């Protein structure tokens, strides 16, 4: 018995070593950094232990702006992207001819590089000395005045960021939802047709409950992904996100480490742990809700 369990541990050893080196150790390290007050990265010294880093971060206007941006991004993109993805998947599931062509088209953004897509968005939205940008041209056709989406007002920039995020995360959701829809046993729909069930009721009473586990999965991973957003903002607004007022929490962490104002691992660690707490809370709430719904 003892020998057997030794063998088990031996098999696990590579994974444990790997995870220990690259996950557990850094996590603990982050925790330690976050409570070391006045840490100096040059001399590697600090003068105390406490929660000062947290209180500094929580009062930093840049951090508060980043939290606000992230929350808006999450609140808008997660429901919208999931909803749109569901609509598109339902559509894809309903058409027979050219289905695989459509599926490929909808999946393209997923295999396209974030920065390349960012470039395309710049072309669509950016106002330069030479051009107004495609979207502005269209706005002008309809008689509206042009807006600078990249360097202009806050709402315009937020709109572009949300638009972009939804665009980038949708393909994966469509992929998951189309396969979830396709895996619903067609006998259920035949049974519903036998009773003359109306389409909306079929969707609401049969389809939705059947694919609800997948929807919850997408919502939870969507929340986590949106909270971790960073590269999308960089792709659109460049690396100085604080100046653009479009920083995210992860962006703030990065800036504290390596940005112009970099070299503050303690503040970065504190911000990272605050993000961790937020994501953990929201995920727990999500899981609770999904448990409740699936029981009833």
């Amino acid at each position, binding site marked *: 018995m003892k020998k057997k369990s030794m063998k088990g541990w031996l098999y696990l050893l590579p994974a444990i070593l790997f995870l220990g080196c690259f996950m557990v150790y850094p996590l603990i390290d982050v925790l330690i950094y976050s409570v070391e007050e006045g840490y100096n990265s040059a001399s590697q010294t600090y003068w105390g232990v406490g929660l000062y880093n947290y209180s500094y971060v929580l009062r930093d206007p840049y951090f508060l702006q980043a939290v606000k941006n992230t929350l808006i991004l999450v609140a808008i993109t997660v429901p919208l992207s999931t909803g749109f993805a569901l609509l598109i998947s339902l559509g894809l599931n309903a058409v027979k001819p050219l289905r695989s062509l459509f599926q490929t088209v909808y999946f393209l953004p997923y295999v396209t590089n974030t920065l390349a897509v960012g470039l395309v968005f710049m072309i669509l939205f950016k106002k330069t000395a030479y051009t107004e940008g495609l979207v502005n041209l269209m706005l002008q056709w309809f008689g509206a005045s042009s807006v600078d989406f990249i360097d202009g007002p806050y709402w315009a920039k937020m709109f572009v960021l949300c638009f972009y995020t939804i665009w980038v995360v949708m393909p994966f959701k469509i992929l998951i939802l189309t396969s979830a829809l396709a895996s619903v*046993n067609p*006998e*259920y729909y*035949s*049974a519903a*047709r*036998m*009773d*003359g*069930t*109306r389409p909306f*009721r079929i969707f609401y*009473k*049969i389809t939705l*409950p*059947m694919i609800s586990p997948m929807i919850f999965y997408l919502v939870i991973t969507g929340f986590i992904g949106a909270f971790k957003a960073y590269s999308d903002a960089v792709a659109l607004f460049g690396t100085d996100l604080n100046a653009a007022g479009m920083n995210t929490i992860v962006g703030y962490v990065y800036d504290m480490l390596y940005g112009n104002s970099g070299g503050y691992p303690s503040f970065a660690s504190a911000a990272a742990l605050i993000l961790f707490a937020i994501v953990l809370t929201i995920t727990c709430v999500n899981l609770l809700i999904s448990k409740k719904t699936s029981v009833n």
Partner: protein
Amino acid sequence: MKVVLEHLTKRFPSRSKKEEDVIAVNDFNFEIPDGKLIGLLGPSGCGKSTTLNLICGLEPPTEGKIYFGNDDVTRLPPENRGVGLVFQNYALYPHLTVLENIQFPLKNLRGAERPTKEQMLERAKEAAKLVQIEGLLERKPSELSGGQQQRVAIARALVKMPKVLLLDEPLSNLDARLRLQTREEIRRIQLETGITTIFVTHDQDEAMSISDMIVVMKAGVMQQMGPPQDVYDQPVNLFVATFLGTPQINVFDGEVKNGWLYIGGDRVLETPGPEDQKVSVGIRPEGFTLDENGPFALNLERVEVMGRDTSVVSTHPASRSAFIRSIIPARNRVDKTKKTVRFRLMPDKVFLFDAKTEERVPFTLPPEGVEG
């Protein structure tokens, strides 16, 4: 409500040019009498489910018409036909309770047809009572056994009081004991409600045991229809003869010459009527009588005792299958030390079929009471 099928045909177009279209149902013409239980019988893939789907309206026919009573329902959507369908895998909604599942069809009704909440509950409970699952109403389908799920599915099909009930392989997902029970149960429910019921099966035992009438089909073509015993006793072709009966009928290559049937070299039975020709001979296992001086000699392989009767397994060069099985009463002892066993044949258990078309070739039976 009687159901009449007129030139009913369903053709599924082929996916690629190389394949031919599948004609799942080929020119069905028959009438299912009111209030009877009909067994639709045939091997897997012969078009049984498609026939049901046509009758209930889930699939439109390529050609032909369907009448319920005197009404042409060919173009009616399923919900307006007054049919209930029980699916092969039950198709119970897993997230709804038994009660919600049974009530589901009622909740789709609109306008004047829609019962009140109390009436819905009442009717659901009535249906549940009919199939004896009143105690399970609050459970989810996953908390039920296969047999119980089956009953829920039947209750859901009955709750709208259909005029015609269709069951697609209702017993195929049940274990052997439950299968026996459930088929009695289906019979009971059918008799109690008097609903015209069509049930599909590939198991001839099932069909024979509870049906008022059976319809045998093969590759989309209806072969024969009639009361089970009649079809068993008078199969129209070799397919029907082999499909009905367990153990299966024994098939031999034979020849009719001068009014006698020859199998191998043996002159085994007088078969007056047909001209001299090569035939396929079907002999039911119960058509053999042990007789030391009998004309039909088989190579004895082994004897299987089954208590009530005895199964003699033997071989013969002219047999189509490796072994021949004859069932004889247990009181007739077979001498196991001998290499051959000799039989007389009962003429009404012997069928001749055209060697090419496999259609039945009738011959004149001797008068009652005289064995050939």
